[in-house]
Structures are given as C-alpha cells and as structure tokens.
C-alpha cells in the first residue's frame, strides 16, 4: 500500500477502499492449523523454524482448526486418517484454504499401487487449493506454494459486487 512504511508524526487517517484493506489483512495473516502427518511434516516444521521462517509471511501455527485459515496436509493420508482430516477441515471457519504438500497427499505417491491403506490423494475427501510436488518438498517449494496461495487469496473479494 506504500503508506505504512512512512512515519506518522501525529494521529492520522489513511484513505483506502474496504476491499483492499480486507485483502491486505487476509493475505498477510494466513494462520495454519498445527497439523502434521509424515516426513513432509518435518519439512513443514523446518519451514516454520528460524532458517526459513514461515512467520515472515504471516503464517502462525494455531493450536485449533477453529482459529485457522489454512490446513497444510503434510504427508501420507491413510484411510484411517482421511475421515479425521475431513472432520478437521469441517471445523475450520470460512474462508479456508488447503495446501496439499508432497506426492503422497497429492496422488498417493509411492503408495499409489500397493498402498492398501493409503488414500490416493487428499482431494478425494477435501478440496485442495495448492498442490506442492516433491517427496518431500524442500522448504523453498512449500514457500512457493504459500506464495501461490497468497496470490489466490489476493484475487478473491469478500465484498459482494453490486
């Protein structure tokens, strides 16, 4: 927006339109559910740790799905877990987003043929916004996925067009 880095000497007003302010707020504070499944979760944790620092993009792990905007499916989705994931997703308030991280949750990954216990893609139970490929994806890839999601959020509007 180009004004917040200016120094305000006294109480002041900033004039903007509501849509832009809402977008700015939503894009800059994507809160994710603290939720990890398999080895991808280790990469996700590395991404939120100090070296890659998810937090600089406004991504804070929340301990409850009811307080979060984003669910990162980080790992193998077993059939046993799939119904739990669906329940977590349903507990999140709208608007909500899902990043599918890694080959397993994208399409079953190495378990695609003989994985009797694996759901072949988390998009069979919940809608997915961004797919991040990799096995597991490096933190840079997950960050790229997050930036893609931010693009998507920035292109949405919460204001009804007349």
């Amino acid at each position: 927006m180009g004004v917040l880095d200016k120094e305000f000497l006294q109480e002041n007003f900033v004039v903007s339109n509501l849509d832009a302010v809402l977008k700015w707020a939503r894009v800059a504070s994507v809160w994710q559910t603290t939720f990890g499944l398999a080895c991808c979760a280790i990469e996700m944790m590395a991404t939120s740790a100090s070296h890659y620092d998810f937090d600089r993009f406004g991504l804070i792990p929340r301990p409850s799905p009811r307080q979060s905007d984003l669910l990162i499916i980080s790992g193998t989705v077993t059939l046993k877990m799939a119904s739990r994931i669906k329940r977590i997703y349903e507990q999140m308030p709208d608007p909500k987003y899902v990043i599918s991280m890694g080959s397993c949750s994208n399409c079953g990954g190495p378990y695609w043929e003989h994985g009797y216990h694996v759901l072949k893609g988390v998009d069979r139970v919940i809608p997915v916004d961004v797919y991040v490929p990799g096995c597991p994806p490096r933190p840079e890839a997950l960050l790229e996925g997050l930036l893609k999601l931010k693009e998507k959020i920035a292109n949405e509007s919460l204001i009804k067009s007349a």
Partner: protein
Amino acid sequence: MKTFEELFEILKNKFNEEEDISTHKEGNEDVILIAAPKINLVATFLKNEPELNFDSLILLTGVDDENGEKTTNEDGSFDLSGGTLSVYYHLESTSLKHKLILKTSVPRENPVCPSVALVWRGSDWHEREAYDLIGIIFDGHPNLSRILMPYDWEFGHPLRKDYKNPEFYNGMKVPY
C-alpha cells in the same frame, strides 16, 4: 551363553514328543519349529528356566507362507485354500547373551495360535499387528483388536497373499 544345539537339546528333553519340536534352517538362521498348541508352555519354560532366561522378545512376526492351493480368477487375482500361516518369535536373553528363533505354523483355515502376551508383555502389540495384517488369531490375548488398519475395516487382512483391496471404504475410493 548356550549354542543353538544346546538350546534345542534342552527343549527336546523337556518336551520330548518328537513331532512337537524339530529344527530346520532358513537362510543362515537355525529355527526351532514348535507345534502351535505347545507354544505357550515352551515360551513360559524359556523365560523362567534360570539356565535359559529368555527375558526379552525382540520381535514377533506373522508370515503368509503361500503354500496352499492356488486358484486364479478371471481378473488375474488368485485365491488360496489350505496351507499355513506362520509366526516367528525372535528371543534373546539379555543376561546370558544367547538368542533363539522359534517358529510355529497354523492352518490357514483355522489360524489360531496361543498368545504369549502374558509371558512377554512386549508381544501384546506385535500380536495385534500380526492379527491385523495377516489374520492370525492369538488365543488368550488380552485385547486382540486391530492396531494399524481402521477399527471398522471389514475387508480382511491386507498382508495375506490373496488379499483383494476393496473398491470403496466409507465412501472413499481406494484404488488409484
């Protein structure tokens, strides 16, 4: 510390019916075969006898021997009838430093094997896993329920050689 031959001699003298205890070689390992109904007696003896003192069950494995009669279906899958399922027990004495592998086979049609969960408490989850994936029923187990697959899984035991994956589970498509 005792060698395999000494351990086998002790077991043979204690449980002296020939057909109940025998030995054979699998790969590089010597294995003692034990008739399934005797496994609990042998286990208790191995653990409590001071000169044996097998205080640790390293692991317990279930195996589908795939030695039954095979009938191939039209779609390329097959069914097995007859033959055996096997259970392997890897034992170690942490004080006397000797190891032993026991094996017992149960018929596929009635795969009931006495539980050793009350002899070595560590075998509790191992036996649940063997039950879950191979379908061996451990008689006398305190809580023989599925451990890895969902509790409401009703499509059989996935590591059986003739296992067929279902098309749907709880409304979710299973095949790729």
